[in-house]
């Protein structure tokens, strides 16, 4: 799976769960903070972790289970890629 | 650097303007509500130390009512009779005994280098009390306010209590006293708890004298409290303290009078008169007779009306104190006019 594919899945999930087609507009750019732009609240973060683990068959260690590590599109994709998620 | 200095300069200017505003407002408020320093244990002790009174008045905040009596006697006797009131906020006989033991006794017993008493003129003692003083220390309202005996302490008393009981609402009153002493010229500090500023501003704005009408709910509260006092009279530690007071003064051959002071008529129901006040009066009269001390009960028999009392329904207003003094000196306390002899 390419990075673009993973990105598409992530955006689709955000649209499906939270933004109903407005996710791209809400995010702005892939470096922007989800927290600052109101893309995901704390509950959404929990749902995101479960989604990423289930969808990309990765394990998110407790060590890294905090919002700062998943606070932008690029951070999420970097983590997933680094933990073998591109093979989902 | 200049940006930083600009920042500090601005900050200091804001602070300066803020405090200048407080000071200016304080001064302006004093034109509407003048400072009215109340006699407290500390100031009374200082007065005692500087003088040589012939009459000592010990009591709660109501002992302040006898300052007018003292002035009247001083004028009448051309200074032969000198009255010193020592008012202990919140009352209670145990607190009078504490103040006697720790603050007054050293002055009574102080001697010169030749061994003579430094202040030999004391002849009479008035113990000014009421039923409340015989109830336990904890009895009263659940919210502790400014009026507490901790204000009679010195630093060593406060520190000892602090070590024993940590900082609490009771001993904090000592700190509030110290704080007030640091700002004697500030009405904003001195008025805390008295609400004279609010009343004064209200009267000033409406151009009417403050109303003497009393709050009906407060009257009900006082009536209920006095009626209920019957259940709590004559707490042993309070009565023991009273014994100690009288024994000490009698031991020094002083003429002792036990005086039950006036209450606002509107707060005294017939039930209160028949129960709490009667029980207290009868028992204290019996004790006075037993101890050979004079007993005067003017709780309900003084000429004071409700209008003579402050909005707190408890303390007598200055004009009322003058009338009370004149009446008492013409009657039950007339013996004090001869106190110089």
């Amino acid at each position, binding site marked *: 799976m390419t990075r673009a594919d993973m990105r598409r899945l992530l955006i689709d999930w955000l649209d499906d769960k939270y933004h109903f087609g407005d996710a791209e507009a809400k995010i702005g750019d892939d470096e922007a903070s989800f927290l600052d732009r109101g893309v995901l609240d704390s509950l959404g973060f929990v749902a995101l972790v479960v989604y990423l683990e289930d969808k990309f068959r990765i394990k998110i260690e407790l060590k890294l289970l905090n919002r700062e590590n998943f606070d932008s599109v690029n951070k999420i994709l970097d983590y997933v890629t680094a933990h073998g998620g591109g093979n989902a | 650097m200049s940006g930083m200095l600009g920042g500090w300069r601005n900050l200091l200017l804001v602070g300066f303007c803020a405090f200048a505003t407080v000071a200016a407002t*304080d001064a302006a408020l004093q034109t509407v509500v003048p400072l009215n320093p109340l006699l407290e244990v500390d100031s009374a002790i200082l007065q005692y130390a500087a003088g040589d009174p012939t009459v000592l008045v010990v009591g709660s905040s109501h002992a302040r009512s006898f300052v007018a009596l003292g002035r009247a006697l001083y004028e009448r006797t051309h200074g032969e009779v000198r009255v010193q009131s020592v008012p202990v906020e919140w009352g209670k006989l145990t607190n009078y005994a504490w103040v006697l033991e720790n603050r007054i006794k050293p002055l009574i017993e102080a001697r010169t280098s030749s061994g003579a008493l430094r202040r030999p003129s004391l002849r009479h003692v008035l113990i000014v009390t009421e039923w409340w003083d015989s109830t336990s220390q904890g009895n009263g309202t659940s919210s502790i306010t400014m009026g507490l005996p901790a204000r009679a302490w010195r630093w060593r008393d406060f520190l000892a209590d602090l070590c024993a009981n940590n900082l609490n609402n009771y001993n904090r009153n000592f700190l509030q006293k110290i704080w007030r002493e640091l700002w004697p010229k500030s009405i904003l500090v001195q008025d805390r708890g008295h609400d004279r500023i609010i009343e004064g501003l209200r009267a000033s704005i409406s151009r009417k004298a403050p109303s003497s009408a009393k709050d009906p709910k407060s009257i009900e509260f006082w009536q209920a409290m006095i009626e209920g006092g019957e259940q709590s009279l004559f707490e042993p530690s309070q009565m023991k303290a009273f014994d100690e007071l009288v024994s000490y003064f009698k031991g020094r051959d002083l003429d002792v009078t036990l005086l039950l002071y006036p209450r606002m008529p509107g707060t005294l129901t017939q039930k209160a008169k028949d129960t709490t006040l009667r029980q207290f009066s009868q028992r204290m009269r019996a004790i006075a007779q037993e101890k050979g001390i004079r007993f005067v009960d003017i709780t309900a028999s003084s000429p004071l009306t409700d209008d003579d009392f402050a909005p707190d329904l408890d303390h007598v207003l200055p004009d009322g104190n003058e009338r009370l003094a004149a009446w008492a000196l013409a009657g039950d306390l007339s013996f004090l006019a001869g106190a110089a002899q």
Partner: protein
Amino acid sequence: MSFTGVEFAVFFPTVFLLYWVGPRRGASGRNWQNAILLLASVAFYATWSPRLLVVLTAAVATSFAAGVWLDARPTEGMDEAQAAIMRKKRKAIAVIAVIMQLGFLGLFKYAGFFSQSLNALLDAAGISDAMPVLRLALPLGISYTTLIQVGYLLEVYWERSPACRDPLAYSAFVAFFPQLIAGPIVRTRAMLPQYYERRALRTDDVAEGAASFLLGFAMKALVADWLSPNLVAPAFSNPGAYSAGALWIALAAYATQLFCDFAGYSLMAIGTGRLFGLTLPENFRYPFLSKSLPEFWRRWHISLNTWLFDYIFAPLTTGRSRFRGRVGAGFVVVFLASGLWHGPTWTFVLWGLSHGIAMAVHHAYDEWYKRRCRKDRRWVEARRSKPYGAAAWVLTQAFFLLTLVPFRSPGLRAAADFAAGLLGLGGGSGRVGHFGFMALFCAAFMVVFHSLQVGRGPALMERFRALPTPIRGVSYGLAMVFLLVFVPLGASTFIYAQF
């Protein structure tokens, strides 16, 4: 000692001066500042309960030692067999250290409750007074310092944060006196590093710190302390005597009192922290503007709720247990914990359970609504509409208000009586007293305070900040005069100090 007591007017300037006159550079500057803060905190604590300083010292010593041990034994770089053994050892030490911290809290706060409750159960079964009921004086701030230290231990165990190796810095971090009485609950990663450097005195820290303190003081000493004896306490101590209308007013007054007491304290704590160059976390963000319960809990007691979220909810619902993905169940667990944290009584348990269930219900509703949104975009627009927002606001605030009945009531029966009274079933007809200038002022204060966050409010605040310096100074001076005239005399404790 209390922020609103006269003694603080002497204590704080003394500590402030000593803090800033020390060495200006490097380790000695940092150590001087941390030492002054620690000494001040010990003195502050001692004015409440000097004997229980021993408990705080023991707690700090054990969490510090456990952190150092854990940090000295990372599993990275080890072969798998060694790493597995070390992981077990690390887990054991972490568990023991956390249990010790919770044990201190459990012993002092909950032992009496559990033994009393057990006795009540056994009594119902005909066995009376089987368990001795332990009643111990609650060490000041133990609910707060325990969470700070448990959070620290978990951060070190999970290797999210290195352990602190400086006992002075660590002790100051845990025991910092502004946060002792009622929080905010500080977090390791945001707060601890601040103690590793010497703090510099900056104008914005002084200006904003003083402004925060003044606002917090007004909220606590003026609004909260007036409302409590005049509108709240009489109704809650005898609800049967009051009419339904009076009880609703008392309930609204209590919400205001609770907010102003707690948020006011937090602002004073944060302001004091700023004056020492330390940034404590925000603890309240205008909760009465919330239009949903989750939003409310993101705005009320933020430090506690983020702590519960980060250390209980998130690991629970993202882990491998039966709670994985089960957000609703996670809410019930978290809010039950929150209820118990507030106090060892059934009323707090009821309060926590209510909010847990309500959050779960809201989550289920949210998921249902989102399914509608996926099918038809008009549902999205409806949710953004003003009527929807207004209804959501009313529901959210009404729910919070109603749950304050058990929160404030002395027991379940009293809570039931109050609730019955709200519905007009209490039989009382009394009206609230003292509904004059101060009551209106308190109401106006709340409206203005929240209004400054919406619409043109922020622009108005900016205009005030842009006013010439003398005018701002005079404004602050007049505010201080107002407080000196209207703040009731007589210290009262902070509500959240009892938790």
